[in-house]
Each structure stands twice: as structure tokens, then as C-alpha cells.
């Protein structure tokens, strides 16, 4: 039984060999053992032989420990860091397409300005914004922009990094 009270959100940074099948191994681990994935982002690092996965999950302390250990156990996993145990920066990018009649445009752009959103596309009756930030900021932006009618929304999932120099 899941204990809601002790449920905590954790962000794991997972460095993996950039190889055939690695994503399936990680995803399979989560589905096979009943762990949750809230978001998952995968991309190559500056070293093309290594990919970085940023994995947001939640669970009680025992489950989080299990997730950490099981990730480590995968042969292709080079390093696992639980970023939530240290000070870290996290960012996510969202693309939002809004219904925007010409007379609404100015108002929307004002709101966009507050969230430092960038306009990436404008059409006669729609407008597409790009916003970067942490989860709180993106959720706030989405809530406000929803008033104008969100036609489409895509989020990257989080990427994150510890502050300062790792030792």
C-alpha cells in the first residue's frame, strides 16, 4: 500500500551508456517493479558515448532507495545522482498554443511578458509561446493562459543539475 503522507518527489540524474536499448531497460525497470515515472527526459551529453536521463519520480523513502539501487544495478548505468538531496537547478520547457483572436493578442503578450515567455509563432487566430522555468512557474503560467483557451501544449519534462562543481 502506498503511504501518501511519506510520498516524496525525487529527481534522479542518470548517466547511461549511449547504446541500443538503454531507454527500454530503464523504462522496463520502472514498469516491471511498479515504480512511478512522472517525467523522463533523455539526451546525449557533451560526450557522445554518454546519455543523460533526468527522471522525476515519487515514493516513500524505501521506494526511492530501491529505485536508486535498481538503477545502479543496470549494467549500462554509469552514475545515478538523486538531485533532490542537494541544491540543484531544475528547468522545463513548455510550448503552448493559444487561441488568440487579434483583439486578445496584446493582453496575452502582457501576460507572456510576466512569465518571460517568448512568442515562437503567430497566426491570425492563434499564438504559440515558449516558456522555460521550474515546475511552479510553468504551472502558474499554464493556469493563467488557460483563460484564453489552450489549443495544444507540450512539455519537455524536467532537466536538472546540481549547483556548483561536483566532486
Amino acid at each position, binding site marked *: 500500500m502506498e503511504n501518501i503522507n511519506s510520498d516524496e518527489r525525487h529527481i534522479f540524474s542518470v548517466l547511461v551508456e549511449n547504446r541500443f*536499448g538503454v531507454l527500454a531497460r530503464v523504462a522496463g525497470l520502472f514498469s*516491471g517493479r511498479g515504480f512511478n515515472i512522472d517525467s523522463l527526459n533523455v539526451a546525449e551529453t557533451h560526450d557522445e558515448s554518454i546519455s543523460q536521463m533526468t527522471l522525476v519520480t515519487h515514493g516513500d523513502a524505501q521506494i526511492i532507495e530501491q529505485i536508486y539501487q535498481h538503477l*545502479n544495478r543496470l*549494467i*549500462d548505468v554509469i552514475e545515478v545522482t538523486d538531485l533532490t538531496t542537494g541544491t540543484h537547478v531544475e528547468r522545463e520547457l513548455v510550448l503552448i498554443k493559444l487561441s488568440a483572436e487579434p483583439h486578445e493578442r496584446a493582453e496575452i503578450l502582457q501576460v507572456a511578458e510576466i512569465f518571460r515567455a517568448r512568442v515562437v509563432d503567430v497566426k491570425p487566430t492563434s499564438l504559440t509561446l515558449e516558456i522555460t522555468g521550474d515546475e511552479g512557474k510553468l504551472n502558474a503560467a499554464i493556469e493563467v493562459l488557460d483563460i484564453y483557451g489552450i489549443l495544444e501544449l507540450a512539455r519537455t519534462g524536467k532537466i536538472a543539475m546540481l549547483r556548483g562543481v561536483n566532486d
Partner: protein
Amino acid sequence: MNQSPFSNALQTTELSGARSLVESLKREGVEYIFGVNGGAAMPIFDALYGETDIKLIPMRHEQGCSHAADGYARATGKVGVALATSGPGATNLVTGIATAYMDSIPMVAITGQVFTHYIGSDAFQECDVIGVTRPICKHSYLIKSSDEVADVVAEAFHIARTGKPGPVVIDIAKDAQMKEAPYHYPASVDIRSYKPQVHGDPGQIAKAAELIKQAKRPMLYAGGGVVLADASAELRELTLKTGIPITVTLMGLGAFPETHPLAMEMPGMHGSCCANYAFTDSDLVVAIGARFDDRVTGDLGKFAPNAKKIHIDIDASCIGKNVLIDVPIVGDAKSVLTELNKQVGRADIDAWRAQIQEWKQKYPFEYEQKGDKVMPQYVIEQIYEHYSDAIVVADVGQHQMWAAQYFKFTEPRQWLNSGGLGTMGFSLPAAIGAQLGCPDKTVVNINGDGSYIMTIQELVPAITLKLPLKIFIINNMYLGMVRQWQELFHGKRYSAVDYHDNPDFAMLAQAFGATGLRVEHVEDVRPALQKAKGIDDGPVVIDFIVAEEENVFPMVPAGAGLGDVIRGLS
């Protein structure tokens, strides 16, 4: 070019992928490959044709291949190798791969795959073997090019046998088997993402030693990890030096001699009352290569409620998975015990030892003779009397539990069984692997009527190879273990467990070409076992017709606490 090149000239030679594979397996010291041929693996079988360093054992079903490779590995500690074709060949291997995975057995399973340009097209006999086996193997490789073969084989064997051992799958496309490429076998393997931790943290080991000193009612709880780490000698030293009572799990039987006064025998669902009561009363449980399996702990809320827990395991993910641990020690059992042994002395626990002796005396494994029936427990006792030094390979069910209870194991690797997955059909092919790996030992296969018929076809290679297997069927005409649960928990509704329609196994053995005997009377048990001893030019099958509705006791019902064990006899 098809000539087998000499190994010392290999640096400069171009070899086909299949030939590279065979040369690489030789480098790894492989003696046997258990295989069934088929289209996508034909170049590999061709490369093995006439090969003398590696003997190809043609099994009759791919499940037999993976179990035989597994049995070989369990008996010898070396890596077992199974080989099958793509598609159905590969899927037939799966049960044996999963069986090995659950018990951490070192194995390399090789499967042919369709041509690379067909992969993903639902080609004839194509199956995503990497996908199918992903959750049941330690690691896997898809080889699409001949020049990858040597490196992959070297890595696969390294991964299979180090750390927590396990099966590794190599899926190799047919064109990669056929094309030639320069062959060079790596001198060593270094995988940056895979560095198993061997040595335990010294601080943690010191803490463990301190807890052991302070404990008033300590117990050792050792599992299959001790056998896998070849740490039986170190475990014996720890036990004898401290004088702490020990229970060894189903997977570890033989790691400590069950004939010793400190041995409490196996714990858990069908374990000894002594071991289960000890857990319930203990103030310190020292787990060594054991994983607090639910079949051992019973209801976790009632498991060892008063005990601090030390857990030594090579697999960090195993520690704290089921039970909260006070002192976790990640490391190889042999290395950690060697260090721990330096820091412990004789434990001052006479009262506790006396309590253990009292339980042992009061609650031994026991059964009641029912009329003139051949009691299955009696058959096991007699097998023990006749074959106490043998390697015993058991299948899954009541007979497995009786064998674990009534045969007294004294050496590691003397007892082989599918503990984690509980795979019926495991034992006959595993016994073949064990006998090939240990030609000087007697191998006894204790089988059930239900389990035996699941892989009975492997009698054929056993006969062809003239393996002197002693195949003893504890024939209760039922899927007995399931029948027992139906009797106790389903109001005797015997759904799909009645196996009275099985053939006469003695006659069937003869039809296969083996010696077959049938024993129906108590007085025939000993003479039959004696007779089997003399048959060494092939397998002998004895069909012991035993009491049909006998149950395994003691029993901790699923979900109950260990203290609530049903002893059976009042």
C-alpha cells in the same frame, strides 16, 4: 578458410562470426554447450561440428538446454552455456533463463537472430529476444556485426560470473554469424558502468562485530549467496568460532552441515519449527547472502520482531527491500566474512543455545506411517542413507520440501533446486548438466510425477550420454503441493491436480531405453535403491508409488507469522 585456425594464430586471422564465437567460448573455458539447432543458429552449430574442446550436447527441448546449463553452473560454479535458434527456440529458453535469474546462476544464453536487414519486419521466426528477456536476465546483447563477437562474449562472461551472478543473453544475427572479420580476443574486460563492490565497508563490519558481541539471542541466517560466493568455509568458521546457531535457507542448504549441533535446518514456510521460533525470539539476525524472501519471513509484521538485523549481500538493492536493516554491508560474502571472522569470538549465550537444543529435540521433522503405504518421507530418508554424498537435484513441489527436510546436506553445491522461480521441470535437465560438470559424483534426481513429465524428453540425451543418473520419482499421482493447498484452503476441491492418468513411468523409462523400476511396497524401497547403485552405464528411473494425500509439515500458512507454524503432528 573453413578450417579451424590454431588458437595462437588468431590475432591476424579473419574469422566468421560463428567461428569467432566458438573460439571465444573456448577462451572462456567452456566445456559444454547445450543446444537445439535451427535456421538462424545453423552457422554456429556448423562451427561446433567436429569441435573437440567444446562438446555440443543436443537436448530435446530448449528449456532443457537452459536448465542443463543452469545445473552445470550450480554444480561447478562455472558459467553454463545454452544455445538455441531464433523465435521459438529462443522463447523456449526463456523459462530456464528466468529460473537462473531468480537464483543468480551464471549462464550465457546464445540465440540466433534473423538477418539484420529483416530485423523488425516480423520475418519468419523473428522474435524480439532482447525485449522478451530484458526483465529476466542480468544483461543482454544484440550482435549485428561479426567484429563485435569477441568483445561481447568477453563482457558477457565477465558480467555473468562476477558481482551477483546471473544469466546474460547474446542474440546474434545470422549475417553476423556468417560474415568474416578480424578476430582478436580481449585480454581483459573493463566496463566503466559495471564495478561490483567486493569488499565490505570496514566501519560497518566493525559495527556488525560489536552487535554480535552484545547479542544475547543471536542467530545466523545464511542463503544461496554463500554458495555462490564460495564462502562456505568462512561461514563455517564464523559459526564454529562464535557458537551462534545457524539456519540455512532452501537455496543455501549444505553451506553449513545440517548434521552439526548448531544447525537449526531450513527456515520458512516448510522449515523447521526450531529455526522459525528462533527468528521470533532472536535479538540479532545476521543475514548472509539471504534475501528475506516471503517464503522465509512469513508475515513481515511478525518477523523477528525483537531482533536487530545485519545484512551482508553483494546486491545493494536486496538490502532493506523487505525488512528494515540496522547494519547493511554491501560486499562479497567471502570477503566480508573473512574480515568479520577476525573480529568475533565465542558468544556467551549458553541459555540461548540450550533453548535452541530444546526446540530441536522437541520439534524434529517427523511424519506418521500411514498403514502399509510407502511414505514419501521414508523414501527420502532411505535415499539419504544410500546416497548421502550425492549431488541431489530436486524438482518443485512436496517432494522438493521433503528432500530439503529429510536429506541432511553437508556440502555446498550438493543440493540444486529452483528456489526463486520454483520451476517444475527443472530437475532432470539440470541433473544432466550437473553430472557432466561433476563426472566423479553420483547425481540423484528427486522428481515429482507432475514435474518429471514436464521435461521427460531429456531422458534421451541422458541415455545417449550414458549418464548414470539416479532418477527417483516420488509419485503421489497428484500435483501434490497444489493438492495440499486445495485440501487446506479450498475445501478439498481438487481442481486439475489429479495425475492418475500419467503413464507407468517404469515402463516408459524402458521404452526410452533406460532402466525402469516400480516400487509399490515399503519392503522394496531399500532393495531398489541398492539395485540402482549398481547401474552405472546409464540412467535408472525408480517410480516410487507413495501415499497419495500426504502433506508437508510443518507449515506456516501464507500470510501468517513464523510463530504460528502448524506443526502437523500433535
